[in-house]
């Protein structure tokens, strides 16, 4: 009986779960948390590079979500709305801990961010398997300025469209396209500087 109820709730859409949560049923919100806790924690973790902080910020995100469920409009995808809250929470956290970020980024006259940190120089292997690139790519993403890292993660980790990224970050669509292009170019340059070929 209980298993059937659990299966039913797992089959529900996000909007149905939200309606359930608003009606005061905690299992609706619990399922939403279960559904999105891992992607949100991963996104925040990759933004902050700190495990404990990412758990705290994720918790903060879901508390904000729970308090704002009534304000949610179903004309937007729930995940887009959720990522917007996560994006803002991660940015706020970084602002509160500005010591780590000040050295990472400066915006030049073109609105482009320049990398100011020294990158380590590992010895590359020429025919590395695609899966083996993962560690290197993660490391390069961590080197990116937060404004670029955010867009790269939303695009490649969360698979959001440009429009959704604009919605989440509240940036103009043109700025999203421009920054994403620059972020990718910066990553490729870092790979080339590190001696990696193929990109």
């Amino acid at each position: 009986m209980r298993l059937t109820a659990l299966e039913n709730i797992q089959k529900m859409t996000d909007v149905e779960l939200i309606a359930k949560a608003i009606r005061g049923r905690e299992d609706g919100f619990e399922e939403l948390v279960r559904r999105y806790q891992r992607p949100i924690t991963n996104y925040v973790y990759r933004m902050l590079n700190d495990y404990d902080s990412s758990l705290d910020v994720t918790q903060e995100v879901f508390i904000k979500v729970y308090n704002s469920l009534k304000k949610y409009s179903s004309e937007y995808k729930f995940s887009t709305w959720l990522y917007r809250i996560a994006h803002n929470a991660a940015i706020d956290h970084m602002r509160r801990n500005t010591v780590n970020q000040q050295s990472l980024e400066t915006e030049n006259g073109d609105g482009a961010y320049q990398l100011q940190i020294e990158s380590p120089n590992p010895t590359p292997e020429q025919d590395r398997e695609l899966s083996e690139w993962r560690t290197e790519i993660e490391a390069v993403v961590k080197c990116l300025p937060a404004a670029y890292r955010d867009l790269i993660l939303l695009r490649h980790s969360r698979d959001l469209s440009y429009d959704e990224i604009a919605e989440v970050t509240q940036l103009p669509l043109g700025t999203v396209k421009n920054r994403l292009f620059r972020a990718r170019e910066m990553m490729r340059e870092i790979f080339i500087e590190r001696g990696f070929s193929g990109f």
Partner: protein
Amino acid sequence: MDLEREQPEFDCPSGEISSYIDGELLPSRELELERHFISCETCRSELNLQKKFLIALDHALESEEEIDLPANFTKVVVANAESRVSGLRRRSERYNAFFVCAGLFLIIIFALGASGTNTALDGFFVVVQKLVAVGGFVVHMIYDIAIGAVIILRSLASRFVLDSSIKLLFPGLAVVYIYIVSRLISLISRS
């Protein structure tokens, strides 16, 4: 492979290649780029490099297996969210909570009262009875005073012609009356 990439030609849509791979261009623009790729070796090569790069990015960043969440993370998050909730509390919920608490209190009182000889409850009922008696006395006293005041004022009004000088006497008389009555009350309460 191509560490020293060739610089694309001026007319080459190099900035749009990644948008093309992402599928974010209008169909008409996609078609223009595809025609261009056929004729431009530089852009074709750049397209292949970027495709490879973006596939590697997707592959590396899509994976979410590295994060280990604490076992009870969901429960903790839900409990914290619900304990700090403000937005989902309805006014009716607060009223309901008040009535439920009041109901429970009455049930407890009656249940303990029904059980008979509880000395703690006896004391409580004695206090309640005394409070009711005192309240009744105060209400009666105020009622009697008010009646007396009305009678005095009526008799004064019927005997005097209400010219302007006498009208001025009424507030003064009322003050004197209130003073005398309050003194009497205090004397009674002291005795």
